[in-house]
């Protein structure tokens, strides 16, 4: 081992305060413990160097810090790296485990114990063990782990007071056998035992921090830890029944395509009814029109006018057409907030019940074709709510390659709920064949763009390897809490960007840049897309907000084919200004610029292709050839996707001919 040097990256805590860290697998109910321990006072902060947020609060004079749910601590993804760094600097760890899922959860517990930090275990969800046909012996578990174990049912507040009272009885537990001897030579070289453990386990980041070569024993240590965990499980848990209850059966049905696909369709239909009809219609009507436009906007306009004239430049920027205090606030709170909360509600419901990983498994194969794996379904569904929100959510994807593909597909092909509302209204008046043409072109572009990106981007797709937790009835308070937290995060992250977007567009309008762009675009819209000159205005508005662009089309006098061409173009057109600002923030400048520019090219290319093909098949325009154009696009999609898949396969064969052999 080369000489290590000591290094200490420290998140800030006031001196003297103890750092109490909450850790556990995903969905074990950590947040309930966090809220119980810290009361209402919660700090949300960006952890230095990452885009993930962590919560911290106070318990007396000590700090309580939450960590993302992980299965182990290492460097497999951003969440793990963050959890690792927080746990390594803890004074004590409150490890929340699910009693019905100990085989999985105890691996993390044992790994935390191996770092040498004092640990106390909350054996949560004790009420679920009976239903699962399990009997967990908490005292035996405590004996074997060497740390206090307290049974709890967090959502019913059972055992929480005991956890709080006995928090400081936490103590270092029994390490994985053989580890002490292996750690001994490292300890003088590295600050703490925890960091020594991670160096030994070959964690590249921690090793680099100390200037050590990462160890090569990860697998062996993991294996021994797994054996120990299995042994503890055997001794502390007794299976009373095989527990093939209704939940197990339902979980199986969700995975079988014959039953799983209809179930997914029904779920999506319910989602559409609730979000697309109830929230987008009734709720938004009230929040946007009645509250924001009816009460808030006139009030704020009158108030600002006391100080600044509405026709002055600052007046226009604050309360004009794209005003920072009018449009931005109305849009965010009146329109987006109810929709985003609705989407997050369903997402939390799926997450809490255990349905989400099953959806991911079911659609995995389909998403493989466009270079994503099953987990990619989450941002794609969220995109129908708000592309900005979905773009932020792509953080959960495990590779950079997947993030680029997902962000590009979201920006290019997924119409957000606001835009979808306008589009649906315009499509309703046309015949079924026009709707089919629209849907096919958009879906075709998604497939073509995805397969091409997946073929030509360097790297390999990440294979799905996902835990399928037992299904359970979602806990409403849990779901609501998650919805609230996620919606708040979205608002916090997106609001400044929406404001910046509004500011930019006000400046464009006031300086005449907007008009200039409209004139610049006219030849393309008239000559190539065969649309009226005024369509350019709608497109320029589409740069700001996607639904503005679509709404701008309703004012034009278009024949059915022109409507379809215009809708295809506006759907594929650039993502709204807030989305593109998020992309700039999340990705490199060059990539964001490429996505933005690429959307222009693809939107005009596809829209124009439809217009020109339709003219070709029926030059006199009375009854344009919709059917042949639809067919040509279907064939084009198949050919492009097929070609891309073929290229990828043949490349794989030449690269690693021995796979699976």
């Amino acid at each position, binding site marked *: 081992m080369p000489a290590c040097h000591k290094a200490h990256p420290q998140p800030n805590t006031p001196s003297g305060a103890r750092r109490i860290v909450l850790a556990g697998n995903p969905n074990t109910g950590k947040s309930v413990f966090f809220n119980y321990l810290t009361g209402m006072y919660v700090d949300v902060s960006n952890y230095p160097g990452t885009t993930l947020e962590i919560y911290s609060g106070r318990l007396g004079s000590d700090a309580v810090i939450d960590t993302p749910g992980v299965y182990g601590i290492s460097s497999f993804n951003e969440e793990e790296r963050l959890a690792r760094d927080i746990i390594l600097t803890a004074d004590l760890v409150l490890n929340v485990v699910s009693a019905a899922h100990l085989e999985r959860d105890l691996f*993390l517990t044992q790994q935390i114990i191996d770092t040498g930090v004092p640990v106390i275990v909350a054996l949560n969800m004790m009420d679920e063990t009976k239903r699962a046909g399990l009997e967990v012996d908490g005292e035996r578990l405590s004996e074997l782990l060497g740390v206090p174990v307290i049974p709890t049912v967090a959502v019913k507040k059972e055992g929480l007071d005991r956890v709080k009272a006995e928090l400081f009885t936490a103590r270092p537990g029994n390490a994985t056998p053989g580890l002490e001897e292996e750690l001994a030579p490292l300890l003088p070289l590295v600050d703490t035992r925890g960091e020594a453990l991670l160096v030994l386990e070959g964690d590249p980041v921690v090793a680099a921090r100390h200037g050590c070569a990462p160890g090569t024993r990860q697998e062996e240590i993991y294996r021994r830890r797994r054996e120990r965990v299995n042994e503890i499980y055997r001794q502390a848990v007794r299976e009373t029944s095989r527990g093939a209850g209704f939940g197990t059966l339902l979980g199986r049905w969700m995975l079988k395509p014959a039953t799983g696909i209809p179930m997914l369709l029904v779920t999506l239909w319910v989602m559409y009814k609730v979000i697309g009809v109830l929230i987008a219609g009734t709720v938004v009507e009230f929040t946007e029109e009645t509250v924001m436009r009816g009460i808030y906007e006139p009030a704020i306009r009158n108030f600002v006018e006391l100080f600044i004239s509405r026709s002055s430049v600052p007046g226009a920027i604050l309360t004009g057409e794209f005003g920072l205090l009018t449009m931005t606030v109305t849009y965010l709170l009146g329109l987006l907030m109810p929709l985003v909360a609705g989407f997050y509600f369903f997402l939390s419901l799926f997450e809490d019940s255990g349905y989400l990983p099953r959806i991911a498994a079911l659609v995995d194969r389909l998403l493989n074709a466009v270079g994503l794996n099953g987990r990619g379904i989450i941002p794609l569904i969220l995109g129908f709510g708000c592309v900005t929100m979905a773009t932020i959510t792509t953080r959960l994807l495990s590779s950079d390659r997947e993030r680029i593909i997902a962000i590009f597909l979201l920006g290019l092909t997924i119409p957000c709920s606001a835009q979808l509302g306008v589009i649906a209204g315009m499509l309703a008046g046309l015949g079924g064949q026009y709707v089919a043409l629209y849907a096919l072109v958009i879906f075709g572009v998604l497939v073509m763009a995805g397969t091409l990106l997946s073929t030509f981007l360097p790297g390999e797709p990440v294979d799905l390897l996902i835990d399928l937790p037992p299904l359970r009835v979602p806990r409403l308070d849990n779901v609501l809490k998650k919805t609230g937290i996620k919606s708040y995060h979205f608002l916090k992250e997106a609001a400044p960007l929406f404001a910046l977007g509004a500011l930019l567009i006000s400046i464009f309008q006031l300086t005449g840049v907007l008009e200039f762009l409209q004139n610049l675009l006219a030849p393309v819209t008239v000559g190539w897309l065969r649309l009226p000159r005024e369509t350019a205005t709608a497109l320029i508005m589409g740069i700001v907000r996607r639904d503005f662009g679509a709404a701008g089309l309703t004012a034009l006098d278009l024949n059915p084919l022109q409507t379809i061409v215009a809708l295809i173009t506006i759907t594929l057109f650039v993502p709204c200004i807030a989305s593109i600002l998020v992309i700039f923030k999340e990705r490199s400048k060059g990539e964001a610029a490429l996505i933005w520019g690429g959307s222009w090219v693809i939107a005009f290319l596809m829209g124009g292709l439809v217009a020109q093909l339709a003219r070709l098949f029926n030059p006199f325009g009375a009854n344009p050839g919709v059917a042949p154009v639809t067919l040509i696009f279907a064939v084009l999609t198949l050919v492009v996707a097929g070609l891309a898949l073929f290229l990828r396969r043949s490349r794989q064969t030449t690269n690693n001919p021995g796979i699976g052999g």
Partner: protein
Amino acid sequence: MFGLPKRHRCRGWRCTEQPPPGPMTLAEVKRGQRCRIINIPSEKIRAQALRFGIAEGEIVTCREKIPAGPVVIARNRQEIAVGRRLARQIQVQQI
């Protein structure tokens, strides 16, 4: 598919041919069958699988096979879905 050696491909109740003896891949295990994991290809995947309790040498049950999609395997109460491409690279021995 491409680049893989030809293996036992027939399925369904009409099939009378016995699967070839010796190691096969996880993708070839049928629903309900049990098998022992012989080899998991990448170190990173091995580490992730170990956290879920699925290790080389362990016996797992194939709970479900989503057509052309992931293979769902279980060990005791723990279920995980393994992408088909990865399942083709995991060597198992049928029991």
